[in-house]
């Protein structure tokens, strides 16, 4: 019982919210790039937020369902079709046994997610089903999906065949040129005044050096006031590092666990999905906020997500009483 991958797409992997606890071994957490999208889709299906989903890039995969299953699609808009009929993003729906899910054309964003009721049931490794492409572990044998793969999913009652749609407040406003909020990094204070202004007022373009590990940006050069030799130190998903050539790199989900470049800022968790949905040629500009504001925005998302969770549960309960 599962999902048959008819065409694998350019880079489709199984991801959840990542594998924590082993960074001290140099093992990166991996996990979805757009955490908000994956969590929202799982809530829509009555899943645990950390259930495994498919993360797709465009061209995306073609999937045939071996069994009736509720699904939800979100993140980027790749023009999902179920048996050729257009599907809405951010809404749950029934995929009947034998039906085919395909993606016609990319109209926004760069990473789309497919969640299924009950989650994708590949084996867990160290508490997670995420594919770690660097170590070749987790997900589907530690690799991206290929044609013929069958991803098991359990028959889960979930919300039965109740269809739910995400409310406006939770639908992300992706943009090709987002302003993303950041908090200052440990080495921000070593920037020259001019570079500080450049960093916080100019736009930076995503180059083709772009993958799940990080995005290299191109823009006006930024420099430290005095050169600074750094020994390798901790970094995180969203850390903005200043490279020796004066350009920036944003570390993403598959980043290395440590780095030796100045950390001039970190994208706040509330805005990381905006960055996760950008692609080559898109651009970002940075706006500094306090850690208080960053946490307030993170908590606001938690609140909205819990409203969705409770809302879905109540409606499902009501429906089951009536029937």
């Amino acid at each position: 019982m599962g999902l048959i991958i008819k065409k694998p797409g350019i880079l489709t992997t199984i991801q959840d919210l990542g594998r924590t606890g082993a960074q001290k071994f140099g093992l990166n957490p991996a996990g979805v790039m757009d955490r908000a999208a994956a969590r929202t889709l799982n809530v829509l299906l009555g899943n645990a937020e950390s259930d495994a989903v498919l993360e797709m890039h465009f061209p995306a995969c073609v999937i045939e369902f071996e069994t009736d299953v509720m699904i939800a699609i979100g993140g980027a808009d790749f023009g999902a079709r179920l048996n050729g009929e257009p599907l809405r993003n951010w809404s749950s729906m029934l995929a009947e046994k034998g039906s085919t899910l395909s993606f016609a054309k990319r109209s926004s964003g760069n990473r789309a997610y497919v969640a299924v009721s009950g989650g994708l049931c590949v084996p867990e490794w160290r508490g997670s089903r995420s594919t770690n492409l660097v170590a070749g572990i987790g997900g589907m044998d530690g690799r991206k999906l290929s044609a013929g793969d069958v991803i098991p999913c359990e028959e889960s009652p979930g919300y039965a065949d109740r269809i739910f749609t995400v409310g406006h407040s939770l639908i992300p406003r992706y943009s090709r040129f987002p302003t993303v909020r950041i908090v200052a990094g440990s080495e921000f204070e070593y920037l020259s005044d001019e570079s500080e202004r450049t960093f916080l007022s100019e736009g930076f373009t995503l180059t083709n050096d772009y993958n799940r590990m990080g995005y290299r940006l191109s823009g006006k050069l930024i420099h430290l006031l005095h050169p600074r030799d750094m020994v390798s130190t901790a970094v995180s998903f969203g850390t903005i590092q200043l490279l020796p050539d004066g350009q920036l790199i944003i570390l993403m989900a598959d980043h290395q666990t440590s780095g030796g470049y100045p950390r001039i800022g970190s994208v706040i968790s509330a805005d990381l999905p905006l960055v996760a949905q950008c692609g080559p040629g898109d651009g970002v500009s940075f706006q500094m906020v306090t850690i208080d504001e960053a946490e307030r925005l993170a908590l606001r998302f938690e609140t909205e997500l819990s409203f969705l969770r409770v809302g879905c549960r109540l409606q499902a309960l009501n429906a089951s009483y009536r029937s």
Partner: protein
Amino acid sequence: MTEAPKIFPLGDGALTIDFGNEISIESNDRAIAFCDYFEKRQFPGFIEAVPAYSSAAIFYDTPHVHRTFSTFATAFEAVSDLVRSALLQMPTAPEIVGRRLEVPVDFGSDAALDLPFILETKAIRHEEFIEIFTSRTYRVYMLGFLPGFAYMGEVDERIAVPRKQSPRLTVPKGSVGIAGRQTGIYPQESPGGWQIIGRTSLEMFTPDVEDLCLINAGDIVRFMSLK
């Protein structure tokens, strides 16, 4: 150390604490001891503690910390407070006693891809190089770059060479490399810029064992020449 270690947000779900931007056994001991302290006394919302050369990071679940420590304005402040009290309770000069391991290395020409370059630049003979490299022990400061990649030091000045100008696209699994006064072992095939001086057949990273890595931060490694 008289100056209080610097605590800084690493985004809104982690913080770093800096024991001095240097490679020294003392500050590395502090970083490792600091992480051990929190691994053993996990606060609600604690995710993991990760030591580096002379710094450490604590990852936490911001909403969880918020709920638990509601008297603090932010989760960052709450965790910073826990960090400051930990620093008061911890010894200022902890000593990490790591395991001691021997790593057999093949320094033959098939494995030691950059040894001819090093011998030429440093004007030393093959046997001399092996003698210098294997006559001392190396401290494992941290793991990073790849799962199970150990950063070790310090390499004798007489054989220390900088990274390659342009990195290799594929460094074979088990390769032992030198970068400045650091040495390390590639746990898997990977691109990499370290100067390769030999190869070991030991498995550095094994996914199906609890410990994952053969060597860990704080351990002491001695290389032996395979004849």
